[in-house]
């Protein structure tokens, strides 16, 4: 009997998968599964330590689109070459697939994928007489937020991520930066926070969230904002497309039937204005159970898994964003009113060409280099300090520039 | 100036009558000693006077003013505790000065009084030390110094010497007596050591189970104990009590003879006895004997007596100094 140790993140889709594994173990009686479920940051730190030290404690790891290319390039991941005949690799969304491949080999299979978009309260928009025509700009969004903001009644104009972290506030702010024409690094790998683009983007962020956001925005991440939105406290919310299924679920959401969806706002450009992220399953090269692990990955990311979920929990709850076929499935489109917008967002996010000016790195809302986690975290902290009013926007940018510069220098980029 | 009067003072803890009712008159300048067996309420009575415990009923008059509802500090008394209760973190100086500081006296006055007290008690060289760095006797003196400076109406001592070793005890006993002669302040002194009681007191109060058994001058108590309890309690070694025929022959329930009032002879006498243990102290000899028909008795003889275990001796009580007690233990006057 083979025991697979699987590290997963503690989000709803993954937890649902854990509950459905009977289906897998019935088909593969010689494989047993051991789950290690962790909160995102802890998970990342655990699996990274494990893989980097070649400790081999996990057979399957849940990793993001950030890690996948870096690790694949270092040869830390086993290529997924035996996913089976009916797996249909070509059905995977191209943008995702390219993000997970190296030298044309797939190193991780997407479990679900997301981009970002705007969720808004149709009822409030209607009351305020706002109509959405085409893609919004950030300036327009600012106006709308101002109109919707009504703290006395517990409604805030806009909810955005404010919690520091490269996967939290920086995901959003990076896409804002992209929209304003900024980039993380120039072609020489020098950080560019001293440019006007970043200043515009950050000023807008601090302005809109500081003035029309909920209190405590600096500690709001995805979860906190989801709670707020579900409790009916946000007029708009720009965040991951996966949120769509939660905010429309009447069990958790007070506003399930009042949510509208639209693309994330643009500014000078729409390139890179929405991010691309996927949680993927990968096998560390150190695993001794590669074969069984691949079997499991094939099962968990297959089309039939989607059907399995649909049969148990309904189509609205299947993991979104990974397979094109899903978006051709009428039943899914019926059950998920947000499906089209999600597809559009994911489709339009290109990890390679996500900035107005050329860039040396891969990734929309991150740069897929090992140093980025640290840099992103530090910069994220500076930006949340700016949001908290502890430092000015200029100061925050200068600090970000300095520390990023130091790190890149220390890492030997120049 | 400190005359203290207790009028029907009662104290109960929970529902235990610790002091069922005590009347007592203490004159100004008197040295009064409370004695009694352990647990008889000596400390309790003292603490009632000090105000550290509330009385259950009764009056405590200090200089004719009822102080029952006053706080300890207001009663103008000073207390020396058995454990000394020095403040371990303060220097000797500050220990002595503490009460004056609390009373808000000016610095100069405090300084003068402290140095004065230290002078009386030979503590001048130790003023800057902490209690931890003092010997037992010195600590004791600091505790007394603390009491002196407040110029109290009366001093209260609760077994102040019982933590000291024998020879130091003798010295401190003399010092306190000397102090009393010098200050002439009323002192109430609790002890269960008869030697202290006998040598120090102007007046001894013998307590038993919270009741006053007898009040009087030491020599009166020694010579004319009011009852068997007092007779047995005062004097060391303890008085011999003889019951049975011997007592009946003398018209009483019990005859008491102090060990020092037994005439010893190796030839003849009233009571025949066998020596069990002879304790030779040089200046005197204690004989623990087994008297025929009577049982164990103790004899105290002056000087060195060449007797040892199993020797036969004869004892004759000094007829002048025989005590007789009735069946309920009260003395029958001769």
């Amino acid at each position, binding site marked *: 009997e083979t025991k697979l*140790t699987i*590290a997963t993140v*503690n*989000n*709803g889709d993954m*937890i649902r998968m*854990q*509950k459905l594994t009977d289906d897998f173990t019935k088909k593969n009686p010689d494989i047993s599964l*051991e*789950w*290690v*479920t*962790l*909160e*995102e940051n*802890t998970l990342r*730190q*655990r699996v990274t*330590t*494990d893989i980097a*030290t*070649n*400790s081999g*404690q*996990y057979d399957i790891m849940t990793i993001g689109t950030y890690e996948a290319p870096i690790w694949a390039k270092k040869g830390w991941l086993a290529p997924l070459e035996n996913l089976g005949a009916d797996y249909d690799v070509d059905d995977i969304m191209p943008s995702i697939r390219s993000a997970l491949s190296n030298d044309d080999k797939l190193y991780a299979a997407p479990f679900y994928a997301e981009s970002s978009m705007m969720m808004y309260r149709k009822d409030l928009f209607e009351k305020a007489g706002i109509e959405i025509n085409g893609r919004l700009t950030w300036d327009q969004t600012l106006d709308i937020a101002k109109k919707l903001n009504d703290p006395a009644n*517990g409604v805030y104009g806009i909810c955005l991520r404010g919690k520091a972290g490269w996967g939290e506030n920086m995901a959003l702010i990076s896409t804002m930066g992209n929209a304003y024409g900024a980039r993380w690094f120039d072609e020489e790998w020098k950080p560019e926070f001293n440019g006007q683009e970043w200043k515009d983007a950050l000023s807008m962020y601090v302005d809109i969230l500081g003035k029309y956001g909920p209190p405590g925005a600096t500690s709001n*991440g*995805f*979860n906190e904002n*989801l*709670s707020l939105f*579900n*409790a009916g406290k946000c007029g708009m919310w720009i965040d991951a497309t*996966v949120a769509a299924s*939660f905010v429309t679920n009447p069990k*958790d959401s*007070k506003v399930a039937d009042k949510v509208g969806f639209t693309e994330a706002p643009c500014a000078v450009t729409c390139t890179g204005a929405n991010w691309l992220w996927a949680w993927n399953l990968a096998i560390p090269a150190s695993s001794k159970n590669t074969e069984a692990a691949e079997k499991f990955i094939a099962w968990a990311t297959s089309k039939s898994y989607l059907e399995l979920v649909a049969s148990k929990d309904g189509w609205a709850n299947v993991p979104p964003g990974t397979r094109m076929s899903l978006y051709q499935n009428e039943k899914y489109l019926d059950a998920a009113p947000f499906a089209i917008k999600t597809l559009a967002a994911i489709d339009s996010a290109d990890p390679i060409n996500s900035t107005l000016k050329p860039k040396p790195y891969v990734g929309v809302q991150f740069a897929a280099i090992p140093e980025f986690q640290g840099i992103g975290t530090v910069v994220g902290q500076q930006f949340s300090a700016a949001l908290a009013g502890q430092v000015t926007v200029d100061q925050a940018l200068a600090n970000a520039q300095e520390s990023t510069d130091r790190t890149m220098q220390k890492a030997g980029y120049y | 100036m400190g005359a203290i009067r207790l009028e029907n003072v009662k104290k109960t803890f929970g529902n235990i009558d610790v002091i069922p009712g005590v009347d007592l008159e203490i004159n100004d300048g008197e040295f009064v000693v409370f004695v009694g067996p352990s647990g008889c309420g000596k400390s309790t009575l003292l603490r009632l006077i000090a105000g*550290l*415990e*509330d009385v259950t009923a009764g009056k405590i008059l200090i200089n004719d003013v009822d102080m029952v509802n006053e706080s300890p500090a207001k009663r103008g008394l000073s207390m020396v505790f058995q454990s000394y209760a020095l403040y371990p973190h303060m220097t000797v100086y500050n220990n002595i000065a503490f009460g004056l500081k609390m009373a808000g006296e000016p610095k100069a006055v405090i300084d003068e009084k402290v140095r004065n007290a230290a002078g009386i008690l030979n503590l001048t060289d130790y003023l800057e030390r902490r209690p931890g760095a003092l010997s037992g006797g010195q600590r004791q003196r600091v505790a007394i110094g603390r009491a002196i400076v407040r110029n109290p109406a009366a001093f209260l001592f609760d077994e102040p010497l019982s933590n000291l070793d024998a020879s130091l005890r003798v010295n401190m006993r003399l010092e306190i007596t000397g102090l009393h002669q010098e200050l002439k302040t009323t002192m109430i002194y609790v002890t269960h050591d008869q030697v202290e009681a006998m040598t120090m007191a102007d007046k001894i109060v013998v307590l038993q189970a919270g009741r006053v058994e007898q009040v009087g001058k030491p020599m009166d108590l020694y010579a004319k104990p009011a009852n068997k309890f007092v007779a047995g309690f005062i004097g060391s070694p303890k008085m011999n009590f003889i019951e049975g025929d011997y007592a009946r022959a003398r018209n009483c329930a019990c005859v008491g003879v102090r060990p020092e009032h037994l005439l010893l002879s190796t030839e003849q006498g009233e009571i025949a006895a066998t020596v069990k243990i002879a304790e030779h102290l040089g200046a005197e000899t204690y004989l623990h004997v087994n008297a025929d028909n009577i049982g164990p008795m103790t004899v105290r003889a002056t000087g060195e007596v060449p007797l040892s275990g199993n020797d036969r001796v004869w004892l004759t009580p000094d007829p002048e100094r025989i005590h007789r007690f009735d069946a309920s233990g009260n003395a029958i006057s001769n």
Partner: protein
Amino acid sequence: MDSKFKTPFGQFAYSVFAWIVGLTVFFPILWMVLTSFKSELDAVNMPPLFFDFNWTLENYSGILEQSNYFKFAMNSIILSFGSTFLGLIFAVTCAWAMAFNPTKRTKDTLLWMLSTKMMPPVGVLVPIYLVFRDWGLLDTRFGLIMVLFLMNLPIMVWMLYTYFKEIPKDILEAARMDGATLPKEIIFVLLPMALPGIASTMLLNIILAWNEAFWTLNLTTSDAAPLTAFIASYSSPEGLFWAKLSAASTLAVAPILIVGWFSQKQLVRGLTFGAVK
């Protein structure tokens, strides 16, 4: 004067005041437990719902269904008790030596021991991790027990040392005169006499080991993962999660809280670190 409150009313009023203070200190825990019985929507309700909500066990059943709580709890028990017992063996002998056979360096050694605790764990994570990997100790209970044991050893030694110091040497000497060998002297005389101190040392260490969250999280994956790892999987899932989080939290702290409540007398009696002479 034992009681400052001469009237029953004074004492009653004071008691009420004290209870208000006490409940305020306790409130976060109370609130956590209450929230764990709410539905997610009730949990975020404004104004907060105190008792008049629909009490539900669904958070608990959800958690017990989703993760193997008992495995985590069992690991917590094994790790905290194991490291405590192991520590006790080492600490008793060491403290015995220091208290009854002091050398000039005893005091320095003690302080040095304490100072080993001042190293920030993150700083040495990578070295330890590498050593653990090479020795195959990752995700083993044994490895974790060793770490927790070493982490708390200085505190144990110090606590026991202070208790032992208070035991009169005479008694050990009497045992020696009675012909007891060293192990017997320790087992039959020293340990029973230091029992309150040992009990509270054990308790403190069980608590510290139970709550240790850095090493237990970083050196385990599943086999040896204790409740700290369990809670890490609930700390921020998607969607409304306060009630579920509260339930998970309650489950994570309940065993130690109950142990603590039942043994608080021991803890109170012994937790002095020699501060009381």
